[in-house]
């Protein structure tokens, strides 16, 4: 224990018989937003499974679904890290495509093996993220403006580089192992006789790693806590001795790194490294993070929530696809289901809140 001096135990405190305020029950765990998301996702999956048994087809439906969710979860995590310090990263998509570009360059021109290319990609993402973070921390200009500018710069840079370096605006060289990574599932990993499920793509290992890493960072470490407090109240954090500038730098570096990882995963998912990777990352990144319970204003994140939020959207989309909902209605239903599902969740929270208050 590090408390400096012993409590001045004096007369007035010795016979302290002040009752703690009568505490009533706090909100029960099942009001938890994450649990709500999980329930929603499972309920919708069951519903779709009943309507279309093919939904549970492991190879044709679940495998691609999970591969998609894996990638988008990493995208959401990249955004979440930026949100944790109360910032935004509008350049997630472009950082992803920049990372993919670097990986593609490594494989195509430098002949790197799979792992080294991945490292190069992550490094590139981290560097770009760090640069962004540095500018924000040093100038105090809003992250919105800086990442928007970064988005433009990278958008231009990536297309210029692809045009300059390639014929088809894509790197098509595939290092050995890349195609395996794309199409193998846990079914290809066996311990003795027991093999994994063919529904889980091996690509998901990166997502699991990212989830575990960030979970560890935010729940267990000093850095994670300091990131959150920097987001919650920068002025108070600075006065409490947190190096807010460095934490902002860290957050953006991590965000860039995760974005690049997502870019790599997207490239592996389709097969080549091209400029259009990450084009559609921005909205899902926010959607996943915010649905999961991460605050746009900073200070509160949910690592698992990002996974659940992304899964919910993925399941709805896949289900609608399976039901054969055409282009005319797909988006309409997607939006409606999402809003309805969330309102239902809200009702649940409100009802349980009332119950707790009443029972007190």
């Amino acid at each position, binding site marked *: 224990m590090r408390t400096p001096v012993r409590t001045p135990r004096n007369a007035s405190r010795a016979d302290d018989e002040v009752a703690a305020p009568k505490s009533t029950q706090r909100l029960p765990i099942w009001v938890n937003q994450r649990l709500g998301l999980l329930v929603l996702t499972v309920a919708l999956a069951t519903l779709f499974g009943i309507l279309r048994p093919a939904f549970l087809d492991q190879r044709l439906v679940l495998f691609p679904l999970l591969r998609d969710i894996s990638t988008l979860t990493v995208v959401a995590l990249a955004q979440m890290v930026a949100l944790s310090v109360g910032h935004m990263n*509008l350049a997630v998509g472009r950082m992803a495509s920049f990372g993919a570009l670097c990986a593609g360059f490594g494989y195509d021109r430098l002949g790197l093996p799979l792992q080294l290319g991945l490292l190069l990609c992550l490094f590139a993402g981290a560097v770009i993220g760090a640069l962004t973070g540095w500018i924000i921390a040093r100038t105090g200009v809003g992250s919105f403006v800086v990442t*928007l500018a970064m988005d*433009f710069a990278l958008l231009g840079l990536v297309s210029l580089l692809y045009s300059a370096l390639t014929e088809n605006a894509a790197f098509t060289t595939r290092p050995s192992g890349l195609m395996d990574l794309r199409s193998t599932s846990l079914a290809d990993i066996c311990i003795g006789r027991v093999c994994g499920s063919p529904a889980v793509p091996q690509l998901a290992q990166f997502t699991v790693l990212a989830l575990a890493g960030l979970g560890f960072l935010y729940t267990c470490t000093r850095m994670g806590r300091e990131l959150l407090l920097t987001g919650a109240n920068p002025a108070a954090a600075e006065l409490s001795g947190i190096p807010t500038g460095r934490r902002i730098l860290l957050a953006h570096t991590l965000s860039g790194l995760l974005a690049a990882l997502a870019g790599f995963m997207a490239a592996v998912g389709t097969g080549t490294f091209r400029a259009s990777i990450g084009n559609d990352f921005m909205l899902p990144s926010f959607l996943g993070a915010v649905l999961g319970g991460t605050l746009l204003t900073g200070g509160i994140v949910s690592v698992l929530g990002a996974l659940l939020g992304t899964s919910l959207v993925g399941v709805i989309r896949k289900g609608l696809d399976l039901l054969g909902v055409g282009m005319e209605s797909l988006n309409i239903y997607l939006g*409606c289901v999402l*809003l309805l599902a969330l309102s239902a969740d*809200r009702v649940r929270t409100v009802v349980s809140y009332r119950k707790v208050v009443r029972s007190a």
Partner: protein
Amino acid sequence: MITTNDRGGRAGAVLRRFSRSTAMTLLCVTVAGYLALGAASSGEFLQGPSVRTFLQYLATPILIGLAQTTALCVGQLNLAVGALGGFTACLMGILMADAGVPAPIAVAAGVVVAALVGLVTGVFIVATRINGFIVTLGTMTILLGAQYRLAGTRTIDDYSPTLRDLGRAAPLNLPLVFLTALVAAALLAAFMYGAIAGRRLLAAGGNPLAARLSGISTDRQIVLAHTLSGLLVGVAAVTATASLPGVNTSVGGDWLLPSFAAPIIGGVSLNGGSVAVFGTVLAAFVMRLIDAARAQFSLDPSWVNFLIGLVVLGTVVGGRIRQTHLEKKGTTHERTPPAPASRGQTADAALPNAGGAR
């Protein structure tokens, strides 16, 4: 009690405040950029047709920027700007072309529908307390679907020639659509600055709790802001429908980012409580200048994007370096941040030194 002298002093203070504001910086950039382009094109850029083209395409960015501003001023985001605009444009197109509705009625219907969508969005946000970001993302998705359902993949163009003529008319080389946008901006500015309802909106954005304690219903302000935002998007859709060769599903597809960029570059804070109509308009000008420069110098879009990014980043860093330099020299206590600062401290730092002789 307030003497004329006092008023003069206040006007001076207002001027001083303006000279340090983002709007001032933007104004300088706009004027300098415009003149530079004029010089580069050996004067051609300052002539009638060029000016007209330049202004014609300012209407949409200004209007959507304003629509976003109204949402931002109560601390909300409106992600459905583009989808709503596109939907409304297609709706008006279909009404006129397929249903044979007369143009004025169709236009009015479009604007009303847009405002209604905004209203419903606002009510939904308030009723469910789901984050406005998610709700507008949801409405965006729904509207995208609705837009596609309305228009399919075709381009609807056989609608009112009068409307088209109005969309292209430019008395004195000032396009009507641009004037519409300016009028909307002026009205919005007057509303935000002068009207009770506008002040309530800003109060609720600036400090929701305080506003609530002062008897201002934040819920109502959120609904109002979204309705207004929808209304402005509706107006933007009208100008788009009037000036485009036709409407199709792609309309509105590129509105989202510019709608944020204009107000935020113009000095509006994402946290609510601030509004910068003039700044938003100027920011739209600056962005339009970049388009014009691209055409003038036949630049590859990739280079343009790259340069825009670098220039903004450079300005941001350069501004900071200049400021540190000034601070070191100790010539000033006050900073002129090149863009809205994210930290509270800068606001403090920009304040006059109360301890000095006054």
